[in-house]
């Protein structure tokens, strides 16, 4: 990848983020929050997209974004009112910008007149503004975007930047005269992190009078110790102006206050030339070394009024004092109590900007995989500890316990790196709903809840397709036309609610609509027609609802652009199953449909219970286990089909004997076996009978399909501490196997 491509990739990443933000801001604006903050955020985002696009030569995008920006600027200035129509146009424009970005990313060319219509409307809206005004704006833009910052200082003196030559700096003489100030300026790394630029400050200073700027490079470390984002350079500026006041000088540094060590000293008329350097030295030197003195002196500059500070720091009255002696004096007037607020200041600054870095996902995944292996090794080590070893090597036991704890912490941290708010998927949906509403002529409002719920990135990526299909389904089949809705006494505007919530070890994603609900008669008749269901078979409402997930199933009267081809809902089911989740649908005729996706928090590591079924190890995900009961204490009953049911707390639960279901020889003594009560989804329970319960551990999920094929009732495999393979029981799959069998 060339450097330019890398920059481009970064730009597109940023664009995605900005577009997400835009979507969010517009949603808020649409709901009535027309605050200047939001408008400014929108403006900034569009501006950033435009700026980058200009740099990479995406001229179509630049053109459109510029027109959009002009409109926004008018709105911001109050020249155009942010009416409903304008908001609508902006949202449409936002979609177009997204399309431009996508096209640019994929190296596609959009039709020449793409977005031209909207552009015309922008112009029409902005018309009435005089041309000069617009031109002025253009100029302004160009100034912001394209004019490089030139290193020119005002006044007749040319800027004097010393060569990075420490020796020369030490010996350099300079004249000190009346009305002369020395400004010591030592930026903290935070200043650069906040995109502060000393040059701009020096330019500002130069506007006050003649300046002489010298860089103090002595604290520069050797290259090996050099931190690229560290701050090493300090500057000393002498400013000559008969009128300037200290307050005026300090004002220049107002915005970087707290991010630098600043000293402002007025020079006495007849100081020996060497003195100013010396005078500055204590503060500067201390600052360089980051000693307490530095923090105290900066604390001082925060607390003590400038005039006082000058007196204290001014070496003139205390001329005979050596710089070192002056330093303690500096420290003294700053009591501990007063120091506290000063110390708080920088941390406040830190809190405002969340620091983040972009990391290649591959790198994170590598760490995740290694941590996964580490977890396995750790549990293997723990398994190796038998009672004799435990008694003999207590230190080892303690060490292993700490190791287990640390590993767990490490794992949680790594997982949290991969976790992302579902917002990134949810925010794609408003546009989808808008488009669907446009195509179907229905009125649909999308509500989203719990966008900040975090979930593993891989799962998020797999979520986009199923959610799209589900929302399409809701819009096309669920929500009725406005006429039908008002006839049914409902609000003309249908609501699709998209929510995310964490429930135990699972994430629940719910797509709900207040439409007509599933037409069960129709679903059943189509299912019979297609042979999905036998003609004489009786199904419960719930079973009929689940039929919509059958492959090739569609009840739409006509194949539309949106849905009806029969692919879709089965994609939802297969995608969700692939990532270890489940889908549940509930529908009330005339009231609406609710589809619930239950997803695991993470894909990489699973907390499981290790059980034995006819001498073979199996693992059951802990997240689905409700409780375990000894068979001898369980309350079983028989049903006519010959199966067993378990009565637990007044509830009858279907019993599945794993040995029987998996066609394994049943050797164990029936009384010593165990019942593992599991929950398949929100409501249904199933009781699994196993021969023995071995324990609880964490495993890394491995795919069976990678080298083999899917096996019904098995969710995957894992490698145990002893190197053997254990299969992961697919509780949900076992349950649907039952439905399948009765259906067949």
């Amino acid at each position, binding site marked *: 990848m060339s450097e330019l491509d890398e920059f481009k990739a970064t730009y597109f990443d940023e664009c995605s983020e900005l577009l997400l933000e835009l979507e969010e801001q517009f949603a808020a604006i649409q709901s009535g929050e027309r605050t200047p903050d939001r408008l400014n955020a929108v403006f900034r985002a569009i501006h950033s997209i435009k700026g980058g696009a200009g740099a990479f030569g995406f001229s179509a995008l630049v053109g459109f974004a510029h027109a959009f920006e002009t409109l926004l600027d008018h709105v911001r200035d109050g020249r155009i009112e942010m009416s409903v129509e304008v908001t609508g146009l902006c949202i449409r424009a936002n979609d177009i910008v997204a399309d431009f970005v996508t096209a640019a990313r994929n190296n596609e060319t959009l039709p020449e007149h793409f977005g031209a219509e909207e552009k015309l409307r922008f112009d029409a809206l902005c018309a009435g503004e005089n041309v000069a005004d617009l031109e002025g704006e253009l100029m302004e833009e160009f100034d912001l975007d394209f004019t490089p910052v030139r290193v020119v200082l005002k006044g007749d003196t040319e800027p004097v930047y010393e060569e990075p030559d420490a020796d020369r700096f030490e010996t350099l003489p300079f004249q000190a005269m009346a009305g002369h100030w020395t400004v010591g300026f030592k930026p903290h790394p935070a200043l650069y992190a906040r995109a502060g630029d000393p040059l701009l400050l020096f330019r500002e200073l130069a506007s006050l009078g003649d300046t002489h700027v010298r860089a103090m490079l002595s604290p520069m470390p050797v290259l090996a110790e050099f931190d690229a984002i560290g701050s090493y350079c300090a500057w000393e500026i002498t400013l000559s102006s008969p009128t300037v006041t200290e307050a005026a000088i300090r004002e220049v540094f107002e915005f970087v206050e707290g991010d630098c060590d600043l000293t402002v000293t007025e020079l006495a008329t007849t100081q020996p030339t060497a003195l100013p350097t010396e005078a500055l030295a204590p503060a500067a030197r201390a600052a360089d070394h980051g000693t307490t003195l530095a923090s105290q002196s900066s604390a001082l500059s925060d607390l003590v009024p400038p005039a006082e500070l000058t007196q204290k720091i001014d070496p003139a009255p205390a001329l005979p004092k050596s710089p070192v002696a002056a330093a303690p004096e500096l420290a003294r007037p700053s009591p501990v109590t007063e120091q506290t607020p000063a110390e708080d200041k920088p941390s406040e600054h830190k809190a405002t900007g969340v620091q983040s870095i972009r990391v290649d996902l591959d790198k994170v995944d590598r760490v995740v995989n290694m941590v996964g292996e580490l977890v396995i090794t750790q549990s293997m080590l723990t398994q190796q500890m038998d009672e004799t070893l435990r008694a003999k090597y207590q230190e080892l036991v303690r060490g292993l316990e700490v190791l287990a704890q640390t590993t767990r912490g490490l794992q949680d941290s790594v997982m949290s790196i991969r976790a992302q708010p579902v917002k990134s998927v949810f925010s794609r949906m408003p546009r989808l709903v808008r488009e669907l509403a446009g195509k179907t002529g229905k009125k649909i409002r999308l509500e989203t809840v719990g966008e900040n719920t975090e979930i593993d990135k891989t799962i998020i990526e797999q979520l986009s397709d199923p959610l799209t299909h589900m929302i399409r389904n809701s819009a096309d089949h669920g929500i009725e036309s406005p006429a039908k809705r008002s006839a049914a006494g409902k609000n003309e505007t249908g609501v699709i609610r998209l929510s995310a919530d964490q429930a135990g070890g699972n994430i629940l994603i719910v797509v709900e609509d207040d439409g007509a609900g599933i037409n069960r008669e129709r679903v059943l008749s189509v299912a019979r027609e297609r042979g999905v269901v036998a003609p004489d078979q009786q199904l419960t409402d719930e079973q009929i609802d689940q039929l919509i997930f059958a492959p090739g199933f569609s009840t739409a009267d006509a194949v539309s652009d949106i849905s009806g081809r029969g692919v879709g809902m089965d994609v939802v089911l297969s995608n969700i199953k692939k990532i270890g989740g489940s889908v549940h649908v509930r529908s009330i005729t005339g009231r609406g449909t609710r589809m619930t996706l239950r997803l695991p928090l993470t894909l990489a590591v699973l907390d499981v219970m290790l059980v034995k079924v006819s001498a073979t190890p199996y693992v059951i995900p802990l997240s689905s286990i409700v409780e375990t009961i000894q068979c001898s204490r369980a309350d079983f009953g028989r049903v006519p089909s010959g199966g067993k049911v378990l009565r637990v707390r007044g509830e009858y639960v279907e019993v599945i004997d794993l040995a029987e279901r998996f066609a394994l020889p049943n050797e164990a003594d029936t009384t010593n076996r165990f019942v593992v009560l599991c929950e398949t989804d929100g409501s249904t329970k199933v009781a699994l009978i196993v021969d023995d319960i071995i324990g609880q551990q964490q495993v890394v999920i491995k795919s069976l399909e990678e080298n*083999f094929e899917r096996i019904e009732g*098995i969710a995957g495999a894992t*490698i145990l501490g002893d*190197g*053997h393979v254990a299969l992961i029981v697919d509780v949900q799959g076992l349950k649907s196997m039952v439905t399948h069998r009765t259906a067949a």
Partner: protein
Amino acid sequence: MPPGVAEEGTRNMDALAIREDSLGAGLVAGQNSLQLIAFSIGEQTYGVEITTVREIRAWNGATPLPNSRDYVRGVINLRGTIVPVFDLRARFGEGRTSPTKNHVVVVMSVGEKWVGILVDAVSDILTVSRDDIHAVPDGNAVDTELLTGIITHDSRMVGLIDLHAVVLGAPTDA
């Protein structure tokens, strides 16, 4: 690491040693030659092309898979990857092998997938000419389905295994 590592190691070494011997033969045979790993099931010798073989390891048990065909012995852990093991004897319809530590799993790549086949022993590395491959006589469907050809080597008959057929093409309720 599971037991049997040492054994696996020596077997690998053996395989390498044989490979070196036959390299010379391969050069003599030239472009038209084919190198086979020969293994036995009972008295019969079979072969697969050496380039498909990834690893040869001693039988150390496999985790059985529920509701699978009888010739699927289960899955093993190959350095963190789950690899299915097929019982070649059972695949030929001669009943399941009762494996011991002396039985061998030959791990091969078939397309994108890695699979293991359980055989009695790995016997040799053969270099044969492609011209010597005979067609499988029409007769038994099992033979024509599972073998791609027959080669005579040192007056022994060696059946060339069609890996795809062994692994994938099987009727599911066999």
